[in-house]
């Protein structure tokens, strides 16, 4: 029987620690603020911290595994994630299209969630800051906030995903996009990850 009502219960899933955070804390010179009253969250690490951590991990891994000395994420290898898109560490993707762009959830996120049963989309016209929770996706067991990869204004939402949430599991990078945004600040695009950077992050979070 499943127990887990209050977040103070040490036996609930809320207390799953995050190996990626811990490995970054180990490798990163900066300490990470891990307290969050309402949700466990991959804390706001700068991309520099992330890259330093990945570099440290990769050089450790190459020594141990005796493979090429080049850090893993700098090598050119085919990624599972579409190259033409940009990514966020909280598992959203973003496709810049001039002044606008389209966002969605990555296949990794959707696979981890399981069968999506409900999608709550924002209202057209609503404005969000970069990293702000913009919509919610729910599976049988959990609901998860989706964060805006860039700050902007909602210009369109994908109502077909709202009507048939299970579509999100099938084509998260294409037909099951979530929101189209008018980009408020193009500088935000610089902080987004490439497909190979994101793949490195995903690979590391599995270890």
């Amino acid at each position, binding site marked *: 029987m499943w127990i887990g009502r209050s977040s103070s219960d040490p036996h609930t899933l809320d207390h799953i620690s995050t190996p990626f955070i811990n490995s970054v804390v180990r490798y990163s010179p900066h300490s990470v603020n891990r307290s969050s009253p309402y*949700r466990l969250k991959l804390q706001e690490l700068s991309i520099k911290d992330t890259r330093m951590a990945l570099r440290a991990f990769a050089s450790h891994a190459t020594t141990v595994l005796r493979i090429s000395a080049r850090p893993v994420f700098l090598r050119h290898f085919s990624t599972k994630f579409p190259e033409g898109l940009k990514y966020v560490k909280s598992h959203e993707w973003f496709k810049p299209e001039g002044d606008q762009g389209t966002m969605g959830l990555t296949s990794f996120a959707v696979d981890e969630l399981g069968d999506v049963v409900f999608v709550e989309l924002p209202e057209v016209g609503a404005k969000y800051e970069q990293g702000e929770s913009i919509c919610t996706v729910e599976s049988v067991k959990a609901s*998860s906030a989706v964060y805006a990869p860039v700050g902007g204004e909602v210009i369109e939402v994908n109502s077909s995903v709202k009507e048939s949430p299970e579509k999100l599991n099938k084509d998260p990078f294409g037909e099951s996009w979530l929101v189209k945004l008018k980009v408020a600040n193009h500088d935000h695009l610089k902080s987004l990850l490439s497909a190979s950077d994101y793949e490195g992050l995903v690979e590391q979070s599995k270890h």
Partner: protein
Amino acid sequence: MRKAATHLSKSALRSLASQHVTFNLSVLSSGFAASRRGYADEASLKKTPLYDYHVENGGKMVPFAGWSMPLQYKDSIMDSTTNCRENGSLFDVSHMCGLSLKGKDSIAFLEKLVVGDITALAPGTGSLSVFTNEKGGIIDDTVITKVKDHHIYLVVNAGCRDKDLAHIESHLKPFQASGKDVKWHIHDERSLLALQGPLAPTVLQHFVKEDLSKMYFSDFKMIDINGYPCFLTRTGYTGEDGFEISVPAENALDLTKAIMEKGEGKIRLTGLGARDSLRLEAGLCLYGNDLEQHITPIEAGLAWTISKRRRAEGGFLGADVIQKQIQDGPARRRVGLIASGAPPRGHCEILDLSEKVIGEVTSGGFSPCLKKNIAMGYVSSGNHKNGTKLKVSVRGRISDAVITKMPFVPSKYHKPAEGA
């Protein structure tokens, strides 16, 4: 128009804090990698004899009540749930705690602590019951089986193990000191497996000599299964026909492999995620969510566990509170809900049609079999009748709900034919 977390209502924020709701996806993914972490807290989690087997079979291990248990395997929770009802599931529930009370005063002892009529229980049968506290609140729910008059076998929740055993021991010691004959034994030498679904009896029959068709819901046998001395109960937590098998721990893995082989791919290893969906569809309570220290069995809709004799005589902790509630009716009652919109989860507020708060959801989610949102919660008496239209507030948004009779999915317990 911004929907930042700080602008959500207090109840919505509480919802966010509770276990079932709002994970950041990074947490979800790293939670599933928990089995490969090398940290002290993971090393301190207890492992069942099937731990390695779960991992080999794609089990996503999560911490649960101090144990490392499989949340799910390669199947999605949706597929696992529907497969249980169409074919069958095998669950490792070895984290749960089995214990025996033996001695001629064991019934008298247990009746001080539980509401059940253990005296009236026929040997070789069991029933759901609850341990109560002085206020009539529920300490834990349990399946109690009378093996014979001087031997009672109980199974309690993993998360309540320490609490329950301390509670039992605190009453056992003075009872024994007064010269009574009762001893207890905690079955840590055994592991518990649950085999549920329409194919369960056919598959299990391969391993036992006795005719299982004559074993009905709630029956108990001490029986050899695949040559191992087991305790077998025809019961479960899914609403399907099925069995709970207490097998010696050193045989648990072999029995699991034997069952899975005979299951020919139709019986699938099933984790805690699907177990929770199945029990919710079956309208079964989960301690820690739907049952708690401050909730009485009358409020929880479990008055049926208290026989006429026990209602009249009392003799269990909190009997006076419970007797009064039986007489006057409780102030709140557990109900089932079907809701539109986002699935209501624990702590979501239940509102009447004028949007006044009249209760709270204690368990909720999307039903893989019904393809609807189902939930359980408590509402103030007067609002509890089936068919009552209500509203629920999920993360600040209000959607429609209707009180629905449980189980949401009809149960399929193996009972004797009418008139048999």
